């Protein structure tokens, strides 16, 4: 993993939280949320989990710890 891949991945997942593919209202709902809203919420929760994991695993990569000098 490189830094550019790490940041691109996180931004792509963020973009998928937008309900791009929902254009029509439908009666499908769960817990009071329409399907597209549930998609956005689930996407946001997924994005949160991924960022939490990336923070744990790639903190040192993002901090540029191994770069020579600043």
């Amino acid at each position: 993993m490189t830094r550019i891949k790490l940041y691109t991945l996180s931004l792509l997942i963020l973009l998928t939280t937008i309900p791009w593919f929902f254009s029509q209202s439908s009666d499908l709902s769960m817990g009071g949320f329409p399907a597209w809203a549930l998609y956005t919420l689930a996407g946001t929760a997924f994005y949160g989990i991924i960022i939490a994991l990336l923070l744990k695993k790639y903190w040192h990569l993002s901090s540029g710890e191994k770069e020579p000098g600043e």
Partner: protein
Amino acid sequence: MDTQPLLSTGGMICMGIYLFSLIGIGLAGRFARKENTMADFYLAGRGMGVFVLFLTLYATQYSGNTLIGFSGRAYREGFTALVTVTFMTAIIGAYLIYAPKLYRLSKKYNFITVGDFIQHRFQSTTLTFTITIIAIIALGNYILTNLKAIGFIIVAATGGQVSFAQGIIVLSLIMVIYETLGGMRSVAWTDMIQGVLLLLGVFLIFITIQSEYGGLAKASEQIQSLRPGFWNPPDWEGKRLWLSTIIIVFFGISVYPHAIQRIYAARDEKTLRRSFQIMIFMPLVTTLFMIIVGIVGAAQIPGLDRQGSEQITLLLLNDLAQNIPAVSWLLVIFLSAAVAAIMSTVDSALLAISSLVTQDLYGKVKPGSSQSHLIKFGKIVSWFIMAGAVWLAIALPQTIWRLFEIKLELLCQIAPAIFLGIHLRSLSAKSILIGILLGTTVTLCIMIGSWAGLAIDAKPLGIHAGAWGLVVNFSTIGIFTLISYYNVKK
């Protein structure tokens, strides 16, 4: 104009005790001081642990807008208000890009402000001054709008027994006293209490409204006939606006100078990382809860105008309190949480402005000043800024307030200097400076042109003025970098 107070005398006394106890915490912060240095005053000695850091980040990032604005937006717009949950989460995603390296550099080079990083990275006083001034304008704007909100809450809580001006003056005095007593330590400790209060308030209100009104599922059934538009997904323009909102917040809120100070103040990398890992899930238990409250409100109390919709949580609680007297205590918690949320944001912004003026402006003009002199100067700055903000919040006519809507749109223009500057060594100060100036000019032209009634849309193609400014800003930096790359190659 006097109206029925939302709080009983007992409620007002409880709230008063809570507010004045904050000065005691400020005093405790003063006694906990380890040394008379800028790092100790503005960054609590760079020793914040996970618990304090998380709560101060939480209380600072969730302002009164969380309790009042988000539910009001959900009342008016329905499920599209869920964009607020996404963008509050995205802020932590933005930290993944720059915070780990910025933290490491801040430890190595003893940064106090965002200007310290800019000066270290670009070695340009002009760029540092430009970024500092943009940050001060955006933060000042933030303080002003929040002070005005606090005045309205106090008037509603006391039914006008405490006037708008009195409310602002007393609460501002409390904030500036505890802030100048112990600096960041006092602010972070008061933020802890304010953060817990905010979380508790949101949680209790959500549970009560869910249980008493039958939850979101029942509200959604009613909404389908009352507001069928709530069920529609955003159209293409709505989706573009959704994306544009995320962009503005991603780049704007993540570079708040007071949030950056909290990154510097972490005890170690692990502490900072863990705080972010908790913070990223807070929108799901804070913002989402208030959105659901707003949607339940739309089903229970339909027909409110914009101003009325901003009070939807209060109206629901008032409605419940008519039948269940115990709920009136929730009003005390809600109002205290709203005031706490606003205070924790204002005190952090005030401390950040004080540090920016002292370290990045005064410190550059008088480079040989001692640490104790700078701290004294910073405290005087805090008092002056608060006095000015109080005067403006009370005296400015309503028509001028539109000018203060520029906040995130302006602040996000400094983001390329941080996001790109921290990773790309080839970037020059000149390219960043011209990018900021052009981006800010485009943003202001669109916003002011629209307000002035010219044939300019406030959000051309459904995209915020600040996002257009960012496009120009990033493009300028890209073009300059390419030109200098080819010049070097030649």
